[in-house]
């Protein structure tokens, strides 16, 4: 029931917004097409402005992943995390999720295939995947778009959120499943 409603929102939201917003504008006597073009002009520049920020951050992450440093980090964290009862195969996942969207998607899919999609560990990985964003990508895109270079406490705050989300994801799944 709730799921059907949310599915309907997913299907209809975009077309309804694309028609509804200009419709509201017309009732307010806005020259909707002219104003649309005026705003749309910025689109290209914003996308291009992001490039240097995104190249910078993704290249550093690509080098880090290519070197195999992730495995070293996983092995270093293993005794610490295993003591809490978290499956060892999940250790690299939150780190991967923070750095790479496609990498973490591949990793979660692999866990679902290896352990079965209804296993506890697959549900933990799936919950972790859905519970946070690819932090460094998000920060690079949004701060890049407006040219902010000094991000202050953005990185530590986001990482604290990522760690809490990962811990809660594992704890809730351990409790429920």
């Amino acid at each position, binding site marked *: 029931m709730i*799921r059907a409603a*949310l*599915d309907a929102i*997913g299907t209809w*939201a975009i077309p309804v917004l*694309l028609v509804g917003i200009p419709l*509201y*504008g017309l009732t307010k006597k806005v020259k909707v097409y002219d104003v649309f073009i005026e*705003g*749309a002009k*910025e*689109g290209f520049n*914003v*996308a*291009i402005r*992001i490039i240097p920020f*995104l190249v910078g951050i993704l*290249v*550093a992450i*690509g*080098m*880090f*992943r*290519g*070197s*195999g440093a992730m495995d070293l980090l996983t092995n270093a964290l293993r005794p610490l995390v295993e003591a809490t009862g978290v499956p060892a195969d999940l250790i690299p996942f939150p780190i991967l999720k923070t750095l790479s969207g496609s990498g973490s998607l591949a990793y*979660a899919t692999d866990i679902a295939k290896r352990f079965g*999609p*209804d296993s506890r560990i697959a*549900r933990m990985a*799936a*919950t972790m995947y*859905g*519970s*946070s*964003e690819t*932090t460094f990508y*998000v*920060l690079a895109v*949004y*701060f890049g778009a*407006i*040219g*902010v270079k*000094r*991000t*202050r406490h*953005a*990185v*530590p*705050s986001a990482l*604290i*959120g990522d*760690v*809490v*989300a*990962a811990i809660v*994801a594992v704890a809730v799944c351990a409790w*429920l*499943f």
Partner: protein
Amino acid sequence: MLNYIWFGLMAVALVVAIFNGTAPAVTKGAIDSAKTAVEISIGLVGIMTLWLGIMRVAEASGLIAIFSRVVRPISRFLFPDVPPDHPAIGAMLMNIAANMLGLSNAATPMGIKAMEELQTLNDQKETATNAMVTFMALNTSGIQFIPATMIAVLASTGSKAPTVIIPTTIIATMSGAIAAVTATKLLQRFFPRDETPVIIEVGN
């Protein structure tokens, strides 16, 4: 902060490559990622143009101002430095709502619009404001009601009940968001906007 993380990731990669002999993979990682970054940015041009146009219509017709007013009690707490009727509030609300509904294509341009609005309140254009950092904390937490990607992955690998992860994901993502926003509020005083101490010059 990003200066050290950026250099750190690359420096660690080089050191690990020396011991692991993975230099070719590091090289490939650098070159492929540079290409991917440009492809992502160029891929955003169309969707960005469309939504920034629609957002301008929403702004001109007063729709964003209405949204700003609706969430005033929450926005006053989350973004005390932003005037409650400012268009930034409405744009941020639209971004967060789009994220929650899983409309990530629309969410990114709306979020960028919100950041541009926040930038108009910023007197040091290269330094983030408290409001920007709090807004980023909400975005990096990735608040969503339906983890559609993972439901699809579980279903395609043969799950009998792929939707069981909906409540667990909502609990985890909300916890992460609350933690991240709390962290921004607690940390902001330790990351002042002026890095250099103010020097007051005394007469001649």
